């Protein structure tokens, strides 16, 4: 079952903050975040692992609540370049080889 992302869409002005949530019905080992701009391939933002380890870009922050099986991506002081669709991908406890289940995506538009 796909993780549920919320909100489905959000519009911001430059400089505003946003939070994108990802919620799973399964116990998780890892959460990946990707951004896809229109007409382009998804691009990696961050990996969060059970136990607190994070790998990713310094300017992006995220949290991973293992007990609630949820992750949140924090976008602060948004820029026009943040526009795109954000996807979370979840990896279960018994994950083998990086298999992920992606959510339906959150469309983010940043306006001047």
């Amino acid at each position, binding site marked *: 079952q796909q993780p549920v992302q919320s909100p489905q869409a959000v519009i911001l002005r430059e400089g505003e903050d946003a939070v994108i949530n990802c919620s799973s019905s399964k116990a998780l080992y890892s959460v990946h975040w990707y951004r896809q701009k229109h007409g382009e391939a998804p691009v990696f933002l961050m990996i969060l692992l059970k136990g607190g380890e994070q790998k990713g870009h310094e300017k992006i922050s995220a949290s991973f609540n293992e007990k609630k099986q949820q992750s949140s991506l924090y976008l602060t002081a948004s820029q026009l370049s943040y526009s795109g669709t954000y996807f979370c991908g979840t990896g279960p406890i018994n994950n083998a080889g990086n*298999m992920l289940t992606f959510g339906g995506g959150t469309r983010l538009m940043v306006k001047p």
Partner: protein
Amino acid sequence: DVKVTQSSRYLVKRTGEKVFLECVQDMDHENMFWYRQDPGLGLRLIYFSYDVKMKEKGDIPEGYSVSREKKERFSLILESASTNQTSMYLCASSTTGYEQYFGPGTRLTVT
């Protein structure tokens, strides 16, 4: 830079045709993936391969098969294309424990 390439950006096929989508990666990744992307449904995993000749079904394997004869190449096969397989197809590769790198996608239209 990691590069994942897909054989076509756009493809138009007729119902019933056999369709081959090819993906090549140049970073010696052991894992390769085929996804289908439809509006509102995100990325859905069709098949996954963790080694040459090794594969596992994803969430929506029906109507598809895959082939991985060489480590760098992963092919998706539609045995008999149908209109409900019209979609964007994305290939990705990774090393276990690290991020997935995606190709540019193939937009397939089945008429």
